[in-house]
């Protein structure tokens, strides 16, 4: 009889002895408060970066026209590339915080209303958040390695010790 009841209680789509306990739900609710705070902070950061980026290119172009400085002229030439690179990074950052925000709202809904679909969606969003975050972190690591090698070669070509370029 107990075997029959076990099968009935678990249903056809569940597996193993894992259960969602009250402690887990409490952990998720506490986590969701912090993730909400972090996602809001992230959105503010993305907004600030967009504002700075929008004003920086204008300021550099204006200063370049006024002073005719060689350095400013060089930066002004590369400004579209710098803007494009930063814009892509900001877009990726936006999605990182967007998925974190979605995780927050879905996990809270799942715990409050015992909503299974919301629970699955919440973890799907967290997986996407982590995936983008890991790819971005890996790309930054790779870029810093490449930059380091480039810097070392440049210093070597000019016979300068490496610490002078840092």
């Amino acid at each position, binding site marked *: 009889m*107990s075997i029959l*009841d*076990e099968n009935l209680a678990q249903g056809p789509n*569940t597996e193993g002895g*894992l*259960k*969602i306990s009250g402690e887990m739900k409490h952990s998720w609710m506490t986590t969701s408060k912090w993730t909400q705070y972090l996602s809001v902070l992230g959105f503010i950061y993305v907004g600030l970066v967009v504002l700075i980026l929008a004003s920086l290119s204008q300021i550099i172009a204006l200063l370049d026209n006024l002073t005719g400085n060689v350095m400013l002229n060089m930066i002004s030439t590369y400004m579209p590339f710098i803007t494009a690179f930063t814009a892509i990074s900001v877009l990726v950052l936006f999605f990182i915080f967007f998925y974190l925000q979605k995780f927050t709202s879905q996990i809270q809904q799942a715990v409050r209303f015992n909503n299974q679909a919301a629970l*699955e969606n919440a973890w799907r969003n967290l*997986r996407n958040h982590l995936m983008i975050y890991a790819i971005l972190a890996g790309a930054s690591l790779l870029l810093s390695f490449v930059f380091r090698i480039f810097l070392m070669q440049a210093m070597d070509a000019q016979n300068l010790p490496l610490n002078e370029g840092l």
Partner: protein
Amino acid sequence: MENFDDPLDTGSAPVAESGLQVTNELREIWQQTAYWALIFAIILFVFFGYSSLQLLYTTMVTPQLGGIFGWITSTAIYAAFYLFPGLLFYRFSTQLKASLEADNGWQLNESFLNFKRFYRYIGILSIVLIGLFLLVFLFLGIALNNAPFR
């Protein structure tokens, strides 16, 4: 003597505490989450190793940076930013994966505790950093206000 007045289901079926269940789909998502969390943790460890080694080299060739004491202080800061969060995420990932393989509820609970600790730690770290920025701005403002050239 058994009590035949009790319903048949009482005490026998492992009914979950709530309507939420660990479905096969959820297991699959958790496995993928554990995979990406592990990659993220490894990247954080590499960041820490790379930064502290680079710093060791810089302090060796530039003694003005404080020597071994400067290196230890800076490495401790790097550890706060990379090593400790990486460790929490590594624990979350490995425990989540192990709990799914062994059907271990206690381990699953532990993994979510580490997951909570990670975000709480990052949250507190961000509050500390914002506080430090505000303090720096405050002192800069006071210093500029009392500057002799004003």
